[in-house]
């Protein structure tokens, strides 16, 4: 067998194991170890496999992950969400579907201290849905806007998903995080537009609240945003000014959020313990999947599969845009069945070299992929964020939520199309801040 054939068989075997229900990390490691042993012999194959877990897990770059995860779990207890939502509610009180629009922007704000989409959706399912339903909002709209708003956490820094992408493809973490900022805001604006358009077409979906706030009230409510601004300033400012590495800025931000939680006396010891345990668990999951994947990647590299695939893709007699759209549609289908991290792990080792060979920018592609991951958090049958909302609000049936999210999925598609048409939107900020 040629190495390439072994690589293709290995890739197929990995997919088969994942479909069978083997945890993604172990499927990757199993095929990786087996492939390395087959190609390099028993002792060299096992030797390489034994080196990777420790060597790859203890790269300084990866230390940013637990910091971002910790921020997210502590932020629940820092009393940030309530202030955010109240402020947004007052500011958007006159806008059609004001509460839903407020939910989008409050979720975007919370995304700036949270790297996890599901967590963000869960928080706002508790804060925003009751208020929307009390005001006579349509259940579908209320639940879907929370599910969609939650996905913003993956794009707006800090984002664990982006760090994982950066690690897999060896891109700059700082650059990618900064690149997510503008696309995150555009996504939020598009979600708000989706709400407003729907409510304009069918005002019964969201009756006006009838409360009016003076400009002064609105201005004073803005202070609900300041803790967020502060954290954003630390994370982005620290990286931008070159003062801190992404890990250091993550650590400082986590410390600030921790102090906020202490100062507001809203975090019990039990809460703190739970936040720590969840942080440990999620960190273990991500590290396991990363080092197992890297064993698989080493095997694929020996087999020459990524290079061969890239060569084949580049040789196709079609414009590169067609190839890109084809790849993106594969992601869209995969995303219906897979978790975002699993999807990245499974595909990037092969797809990324092809994308680079086509001449696309790695940072830009990272944002596109993360955006697609957001879509896959919403689409049935495995739209995780919809499950989370349904988990918090079992009275709103899952199929209602799935029906409600389509406008937001369309908004996401429009945003992705925009980024493909004008790639500079994504790359302008990191290029301006960190140089080309």
């Amino acid at each position: 067998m040629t190495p390439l054939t072994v690589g293709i068989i290995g890739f197929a075997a990995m997919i088969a194991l994942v479909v069978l229900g083997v945890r993604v990390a172990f499927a990757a490691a199993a095929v990786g170890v087996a492939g390395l042993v087959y190609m390099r012999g028993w002792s060299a194959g096992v030797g390489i496999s034994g080196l990777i877990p420790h060597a790859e897990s203890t790269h300084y770059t990866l230390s940013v992950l637990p910091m971002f995860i910790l921020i997210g779990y502590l932020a629940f207890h820092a009393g940030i969400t309530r202030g955010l939502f109240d402020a947004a509610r007052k500011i958007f009180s006159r806008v059609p579907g004001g509460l839903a629009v407020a939910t989008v922007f409050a979720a975007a704000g919370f995304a700036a201290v949270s790297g996890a989409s599901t967590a963000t959706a869960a928080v706002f399912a508790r804060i925003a849905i009751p208020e929307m339903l009390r005001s006579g909002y349509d259940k579908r709209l209320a639940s879907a806007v929370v599910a969609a708003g939650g996905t913003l956490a993956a794009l707006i820094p800090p984002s664990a998903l982006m760090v994982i992408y950066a690690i897999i493809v060896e891109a700059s973490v700082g650059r990618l995080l900064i690149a997510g900022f503008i696309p995150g805001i555009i996504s939020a604006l598009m979600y708000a537009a989706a709400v407003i358009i729907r409510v304009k077409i069918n005002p019964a979906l969201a009756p006006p609240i009838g409360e009016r706030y003076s400009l002064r009230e609105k201005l004073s409510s803005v202070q609900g945003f300041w803790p967020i601004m502060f954290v954003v300033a630390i994370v982005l400012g620290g990286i931008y000014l070159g003062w801190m590495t992404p890990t250091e800025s993550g650590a400082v931000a986590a410390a600030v959020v921790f102090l906020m939680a202490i100062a507001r006396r809203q975090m019990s010891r039990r809460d703190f313990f739970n936040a720590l345990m969840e942080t440990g668990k999620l960190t273990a999951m991500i590290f396991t999947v990363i080092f197992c994947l890297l064993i698989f990647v080493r095997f694929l590299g020996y087999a020459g599969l990524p290079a061969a695939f890239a060569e084949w893709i580049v040789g196709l007699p079609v414009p590169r845009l067609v190839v890109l759209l084809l790849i993106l549609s594969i992601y869209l289908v995969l995303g219906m069945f897979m978790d975002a991290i699993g999807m990245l792990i499974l595909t990037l080792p092969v797809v990324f070299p092809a994308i680079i060979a086509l001449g696309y920018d790695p940072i830009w592609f990272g944002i596109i992929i993360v955006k697609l991951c957001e879509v896959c958090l919403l689409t049935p049958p495995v739209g995780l964020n919809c499950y989370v909302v349904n988990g918090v609000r079992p009275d709103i049936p899952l199929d209602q939520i799935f029906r409600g999210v389509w406008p937001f999925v369309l908004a996401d598609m429009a945003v992705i199309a925009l980024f493909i048409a004008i790639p500079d939107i994504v790359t302008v900020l990191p290029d301006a801040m960190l140089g080309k």
Partner: protein
Amino acid sequence: MTDDSSAARAQRTAFTAGFARFDAVYGGIEAAFNLIAATAIFLMMMLMVAEVVAHKLLRTSIYGFFDVVELGMAVFAFLGAAYCQRLGGHIRMDLLVTKLQGRAKFVVEAVAVLVALIVVALLIKATWEHAMRAYFGNDTTSDAELQTWPSKILAPIGLGMLWLRLLLQFIGFIRLAADPDAVPIGVPRPVEIQEDAVD
């Protein structure tokens, strides 16, 4: 079973009780190790803040900072893996498994865990040898010349704990495959939506 005498039944009950007890005790140990991992993350946060302060305000740097961080990362990279597995936290695609019912479901689950058992066993052997090479080769970091083996040995320790958890899950699934109506022990509960960390 044809010879389902009361003695055999009693034996099974005793096994179930012992298995459940071991599962619970071991679950406590896993949680303790996860807490160690999480505490390491929190300490690293404080170390980072201290380094930033030292670096920016005092124009100095903590001696061996990078070495300590990199070696220390092994604590949270490996020690929480078993706890995570117990709670079903490692990602997977469960589309097929959730479609299956009864015995078939548990057989597929057992096979999936078996794959993990085999590969994790290999990784334990391989990472152990890697750690031993560091120990006997007196391997140190380049900067502060810290010994690397205490960090490297955390890989086989964490993976070893993971392996034991996988073994418990394997036994748990085999037991359910034999008797699909038995009370599940040692296996992750069906995917639950995370609510605990909220608000």
